[in-house]
């Protein structure tokens, strides 16, 4: 170790050892809690609740006695009069131009200014949102924390049906929007529940992965979604082209934001013209989401071994795939050859049915068997580049056994229509499996090595 490494190790050890057991609070093991977003009952009632939820979003009842979304604290109630507002930030510089929007609901757009508190590196901790109300001629304002980001007004939406419009304030891509409501001549920040969160960006899940989240205005309402599955990548997330999301509609009651589940839909990057694509969720195509009804079997079994080859057509182009020792060889339509070394050990075999993955020009599955397990590699061709995809994350890829006693099986196969699946046994000896459909992540950077992302399509299924 170098001197600096030694010094660092000593300094860290010294600082850490300042904390001794007697310095800690009394131990308190947290009790198990079920996050309602992942609760199965949420999915069961979501579709049925959809229509009622939109009409009366505050009476959605999960109805099974299990933990359900806790309504936000209702403060303040409309009957209370707000105390006078301290004039804070009227001398802060107006940093960002904001388009006028009709806040007071009189049909005339009101001028908006966002004043950021001076600070470093970019801005101070607070911002003042000012609105010149055309109906009364008065200026109203509200203060929101900036979280060190330049904030701006995203949308104006009437969330409580009182005629005027609430302002959603965008900050960082991983922290919730602030919502300002006009009340008693003040813009007051609405209380928000801890889950779901009004975020456009990534919500980390604590395992090096994250969920995709977005907030948008549609048909006069405010909506958000949160991806059902987690993805690797984080900054940015390597999302597949199609993935299921839980959609929520938001309302404002007594100064508090109230979420109402709308149900599961899909973000489908391929569903519309890329030039006009708005990224909003649509009904899921067959096979996506936990309610998917696609057929998982039979699996494709034809393979080639070393020294063998097969031809495959994808669209109007033809490729030849062969195995040369422990290298996969792909001959492109122009005759160029690409080689990928296979690191799994053992004799490889290649499935002759190409894997159907949006985002790859050609995808083939290679298996290398060893003992009671097989290492599998998905080789993909994108923009003339052939690479072995990454399969990091919580879901295993290939065939084998999980757990400390290696007694929970997992198995990967190519199903009908070339869809790639992995099933994971829920318990040792059980005949129930969680089934994942693999998608190619990396919609952001086509030049990067693609990552396979698992999407849960069946939970506890008897495949």
């Amino acid at each position, binding site marked *: 170790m170098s001197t600096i490494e030694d010094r*660092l190790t000593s300094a860290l050890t010294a600082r850490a050892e300042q904390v001794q057991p007697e310095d800690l609070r009394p131990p308190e093991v947290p009790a198990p809690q079920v996050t309602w977003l992942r609760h199965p009952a949420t999915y069961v009632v979501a579709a049925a609740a959809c229509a009622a939820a939109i009409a009366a979003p505050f009476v959605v009842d999960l109805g099974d006695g299990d933990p359900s979304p806790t309504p936000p604290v209702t403060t303040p109630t409309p009957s209370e009069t707000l105390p006078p507002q301290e004039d804070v930030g009227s001398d802060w510089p107006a940093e960002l131009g904001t388009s006028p929007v009709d806040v007071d609901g009189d049909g005339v757009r009101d001028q908006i200014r966002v004043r950021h508190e001076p600070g470093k590196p970019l801005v101070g901790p607070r911002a003042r949102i000012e609105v010149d109300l055309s109906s009364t001629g008065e200026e109203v304002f509200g203060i929101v924390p900036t979280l060190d980001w330049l904030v701006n007004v995203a949308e104006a939406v009437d969330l409580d049906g009182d005629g005027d419009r609430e302002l959603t304030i965008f900050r960082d891509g991983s922290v919730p929007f602030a919502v300002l409501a006009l009340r008693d001549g003040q813009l007051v920040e609405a209380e928000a529940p801890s889950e779901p969160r009004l975020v456009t960006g990534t919500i980390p899940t604590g395992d090096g992965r994250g969920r995709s989240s977005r907030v948008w205005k549609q048909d006069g309402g405010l909506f958000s979604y949160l991806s059902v599955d987690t993805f690797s990548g984080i900054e940015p997330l390597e999302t597949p082209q199609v993935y299921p999301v839980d959609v929520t509609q938001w309302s404002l009651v007594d100064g508090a934001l109230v979420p109402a589940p709308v149900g599961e839909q899909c973000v489908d990057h391929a569903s519309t013209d890329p030039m006009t694509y708005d990224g909003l969720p649509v009904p899921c195509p067959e096979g996506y989401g936990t309610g998917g009804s696609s057929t998982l079997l039979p699996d494709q079994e034809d393979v080639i071994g070393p020294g063998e080859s097969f031809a495959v057509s994808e669209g109007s182009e033809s490729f030849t795939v062969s195995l040369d020792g422990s290298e996969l060889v792909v001959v492109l339509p122009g005759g160029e050859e690409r080689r990928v070394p296979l690191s799994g050990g053992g004799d490889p075999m290649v499935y002759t049915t190409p894997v159907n993955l949006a985002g790859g020009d050609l995808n083939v599955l290679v298996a290398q068997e060893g003992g009671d397990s097989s290492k599998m590699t998905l080789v993909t061709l994108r923009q003339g580049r052939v690479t072995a995809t990454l399969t990091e994350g919580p879901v295993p890829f290939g065939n084998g056994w999980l757990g400390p006693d290696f*007694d929970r099986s997992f198995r990967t196969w190519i199903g009908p229509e070339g869809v790639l699946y992995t099933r994971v046994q829920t318990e040792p000896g059980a005949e129930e499996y969680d089934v994942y459909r693999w998608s190619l992540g990396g919609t952001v950077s086509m030049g990067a090595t693609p990552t396979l992302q698992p999407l849960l399509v069946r939970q506890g299924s008897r495949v």
Partner: protein
Amino acid sequence: MARLRSGARSGASQTFPPAELAELYVAHRLSLVRLAILLVDDLASAEDVVQDAFAAMAGRRGRLDNSAAALAYLRTSVVNGSRSALRRRRTARGYVAPHEAPPDGPEGKAVIAEEHREVYEALERLAPRQREVLVLRYWSHLSEAEIADALGISRGSVKSTASRALDALEAILSKEGQR
């Protein structure tokens, strides 16, 4: 295809088993608080971050394969939670009068030695990701692969981040030494 073993059918596991959680809590709470304090600097925040990590573990569906996997999950939660705590604190600091700032460590403890304090203060000036990589490497003694897992980045990023972080640390210390 792997052949499945026969046996009694049982349902999917629900939340993390309380007994296993309690064992993990007793075994790892102190070391995780120590990890957190190296990332967030004050004991109260460090304890909050660790408590949140265990709470998340308690609400997790299904069990992890082994205690190493559980510890890795907790470690990642602590790192992410510490990053969030720092971000929240940057906001809160605008509202907190200086005399109300959190104490710099456990009350009643001896002040850290001068040579360690210099290094530690230099560490505080690094970017959060650099600091995380150095703490996980030189205090938690994790491998590059384990750090990559904990931070959700590639091994290559771990290596390059650590290298740049050490260079930056050395540069800060050298500059401070010339004053």
